[in-house]
């Protein structure tokens, strides 16, 4: 039984790690989360396999023969065993909780010189506001989300109406846009490209259409884009 369990666990873990679970990652913080996920798989699969293997073994070994009207052995418990299966899961979840906490602290760490982007949710679209490149107080408004690589972006999230949820799967992070308060998350884009922006909180009729995209570009390109957008906005008044 132990042999079968071991083989099944190894196959299970390999298969679970082989699956390409996540969409491509575009921020530095993603690595910590993806590793955490792999660790959770490595811990979970053997536990599931253990339960399956013992259940299947019991069914095969202790199945009643036809006509067997007897009873099983009157085993009422086993203190040693019970201590073990209280202690082992306790240790496992404690370690995982601490590990999860550390990762949380890491991914939420504030880096200096953050780019502040205001995000406003509205049924059923996202709007963004960027700091003015000329240093003015007036923010640069746009329906496009463009961020530079190599610099931590802090999203300050608001909503005009109901709750939405600002989610960029490639950035791995999300948070609700809540009426009355401003919520935040931070990430450091590292891979150039275009990625989905989704609303992950039911916000009414058009919730499933509340999809947009984010462009991660080189810092120079970002500056150019921002100046152009600012100029255009100034022109339009």
């Amino acid at each position: 039984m132990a042999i079968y369990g071991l083989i099944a666990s190894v196959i299970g873990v390999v298969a679970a790690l082989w699956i390409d679970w996540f969409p491509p990652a575009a921020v530095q913080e993603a690595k910590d989360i993806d590793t955490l996920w792999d660790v959770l798989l490595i811990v979970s699969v053997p536990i599931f396999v253990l339960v399956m293997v013992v259940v299947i073994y019991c069914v095969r070994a202790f199945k009643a023969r036809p006509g067997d009207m007897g009873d099983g052995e009157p085993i009422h418990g086993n203190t040693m065993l019970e201590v073990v299966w209280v202690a082992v899961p306790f240790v496992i979840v404690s370690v995982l909780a601490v590990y999860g906490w550390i990762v949380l602290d890491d991914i939420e760490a504030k880096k200096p010189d953050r780019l502040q982007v205001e995000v406003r949710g509205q049924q059923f679209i996202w709007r963004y506001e960027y700091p003015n490149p000329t240093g003015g107080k007036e923010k640069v408004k746009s329906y496009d989300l463009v961020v530079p690589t190599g610099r931590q972006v802090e999203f300050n999230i608001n909503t005009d109406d109901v709750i939405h949820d600002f989610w960029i799967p490639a950035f791995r992070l999300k948070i609700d846009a809540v009426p009355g308060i401003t919520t935040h998350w931070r990430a450091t884009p590292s891979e150039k490209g275009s990625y989905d922006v989704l609303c992950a909180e039911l916000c009414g009729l058009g919730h499933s259409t509340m999809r947009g995209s984010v462009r991660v570009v080189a810092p120079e390109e970002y500056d150019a884009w921002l100046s152009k957008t600012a100029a255009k906005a100034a022109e339009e008044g």
Partner: protein
Amino acid sequence: MTLAAKFKGPGWYRAALSIPLGILFGLGLTVGVRALYGYDPLFDGDAITTVALISTPLAFLVGIGCFDYWFYWAAGKPTREEDHSSHGAHTWKDYFKVNTDHKVIGIQYICTTFVFFVLGGLMAMVMRAELAAPGSQIVDPNTFNGLFSVHASLMIFLFIIPVFAGIANYVLPLMIGAPDMAFPRLNALSFWMLPTAGIMMVASFFAPGGSFATGWTAYAPLSTETPLGQTFFTIGVQFAGASSIATALNFLVTIITMRAPGMTFWRMPLLVWANFTTSLLVVIATPFIAGSQFFVLFDRALGTDFFNAAAGGDVLMYQHVFWFYSHPAVYIMMLPGFGIISEVISTHARKPVFGYRMMAFSLMAIVVLGFTVWAHHMFVSGMFSWLRVPMMITTMLIAVPTGIKIFSWIATLWKGVIHMTTPMLFALGFITMFTLGGISGIVLAVIPVDIYVSDTYFVVAHIHYVLFGGSVFTIFAGIYHWFPKMTGRMYDETLGRIHFWLSFIFFNLTFGPMHLVGVDGMPRRVADYAEEFATLNALISVSSFIFGMSFFIFLYNMISSWRHGPKAAANPWRAHTIEWQVSSPPPIFNFDEIPTVVGGPYEYGVPGAQHAIFKATEEKREPVAAE
């Protein structure tokens, strides 16, 4: 009976009269108050419907006869001598009347809740048809939002929670050697509130603007702004919740005061322990959801600003109060199933439950811990961030008592004589699938992972692994297990097995791939999705249709076996607990002689061991104090 008498006495005739009166009352009250205040227009459809949704169900309950006895008593009239005319079923018609027999009520509960299970299931099929391919298939987004909202609400409030109450209603008094529940009339009232709540939720589809469409979670401020259909949920939940609370009180009093002589707490079957702990959860937690929905109702109907941030309302407050009920509610939906599995496994494996006392203690631990984890549903809600880590830790700690249960069931199988009956198959299916759902639960508790997967299909997968592979499998196990007791007939074992294997396989094919699409980035509660999720969603939809069909094998088995199945013996499973020591189905007042409990409930394999003995005695029963 003369026609006039029919309208005077409790029953459907009088209900048919009282329902229009209830509507009229709602109309009159609304119009009257609006006239007093000089509101325009005088006739406001939304306002009238809101009040009528409260007055009409109450009028129905009065008409059908839930309150007759109490009214007599409260009015100081001589209450009629109890002639037991509304106790026990003599024809099928008695199941459609207010009845005080816990066995009749149990059957009423089970049949009613399965009706709502089928309705909720059909809605799931429509959703899966819509989701079979990207783009719009058969329903518009508003209907889709309505479908998953009503689907989830029916499954939770009208199926899982009450069907457990129904099974326990039937079995629990017999198990503890009681002639009935402690408050039979309250028991009847609890039952009759349920169809009211369910019909209200389903009827919301006919409201202008469509059914409620904010999920079963009804987050404010979306729920305070959507059309009238939402009110059907807000008020429907009140009736379902009141029913739940009343039943839980009834169970608590029954278990505490009505155990047979010798039935100490440590001799109670684990199903009784499970319902004892569940009832504690229900009475403590359910008032919170009632509160949350009342505040939504006030915001909608009275123009208050509890959840209007612009006027100083607090949006996150709704979620805290809601989850302070709804997390314990997941244990309300699971603990009774734990009880069923303990009975089924020990009986069909012919072994004492391994670590009986730890099984009871772990139930208590889950009750206590269950109140300390609600905010794990709010890791991405924008609440105060310091609360997240403590709630992650408590959430993960619940794995310990839950693990005790799973390992103890497996140890119960060890060296047993395992009979692979249908209830046993479902119990084994439960153990494995619930383990998977539990593991994905641990994964969800780890905050950085939850931030990513919350509100995705990963959560939909998790929900269904714990609720379908978990709760519903225990319900099937329990129904098959006690079917002979309830109906006096045997079900068809072959059909039962086919039902199990189809369910087990297609359950996994339906909900397994949802983990993958979820982690790949598909959000939940969407009528449409990106092209890249198309293949897996097609597979999910096809599997779900076959899975849905498998239910009809169960239905056919139940109906045909109930009508023509072979007669069942009193104790076909050779179980030790008391419900099996009386005839199948049991006598109207349960026990012709009162049992005396002399040992534990699961002493299989112990030579000469007995749980209860029957000796003809005229002694008056005294409640036994706890040890």
